[in-house]
């Protein structure tokens, strides 16, 4: 379980390796807010290595997206597998986020 933060041009990419759940959501939140405070404005959270997101994981993405938009930044999600996509669809959060099929597509035009 780890969050890998890397920079691609001016976009911060966070790879979620393992799970994004109640037990580690604060860690993701802190990492993103730290970069936001440092002045970063463009974010991609990449889920290609993610097994599972629970409702508090979804919640942390909602709250990060709000905070980033308040700073006139943008958050995109990428590489949701079928199960994860189902969770976003059920909760209608697919209407709230820009979701790209791949990390590369998420980076395009950001």
């Amino acid at each position: 379980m780890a969050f890998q933060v890397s920079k691609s041009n001016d976009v911060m990419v966070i790879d979620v390796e393992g799970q994004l759940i109640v037990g580690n959501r604060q860690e993701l939140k802190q990492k993103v807010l730290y970069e936001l405070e440092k002045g970063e404005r463009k974010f991609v959270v990449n889920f290609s290595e993610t097994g599972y997101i629970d409702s508090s994981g979804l919640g942390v993405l909602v709250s990060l997206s709000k905070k980033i938009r308040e700073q006139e930044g943008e958050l995109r999600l990428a590489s949701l597998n079928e199960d994860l996509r189902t969770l976003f669809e059920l909760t209608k959060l697919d209407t709230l986020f820009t979701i790209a099929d791949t990390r590369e597509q998420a980076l395009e035009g950001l």
Partner: protein
Amino acid sequence: MDKALVLELPNDISSIEHAVEYVMRHCSSCTDYARRLNLNFRVGLTEALSNAMLYGNGSDPEKRVRVEVDVSVEEVAVRVTDQGVGFDPASIPDPTLPDNLTKSGGRGIFLMKTLMDEVQFNDRGNSVTLVLRLKGEATV
């Protein structure tokens, strides 16, 4: 409910992941239902456990959560009971309504209800029974 397997967990959210995995492995008749187990059951049980620990037991490390698992060929049923005062599940608003969509919380019980075939709270509201049917139509 025939208590095939019972767990009493410490009130520690870091114990949720392993417990869910163990319960999933315990259901050996479930292997044919990998998708429903991996998504529906895993999410449902995880939400029930975190609610029990965070709200029911109020993150009190002295409290405990009881998990009763009953597996048959037809279904897997799990009851999660906390030591809290309970709540009224009918009072929980629909998180998919436009006004609620940008709230950071409020999706746990909704996901439980959407993903499991049956979700039943006791009157007090400190115990929830989740049922996933292994035969017939998948709802999601």
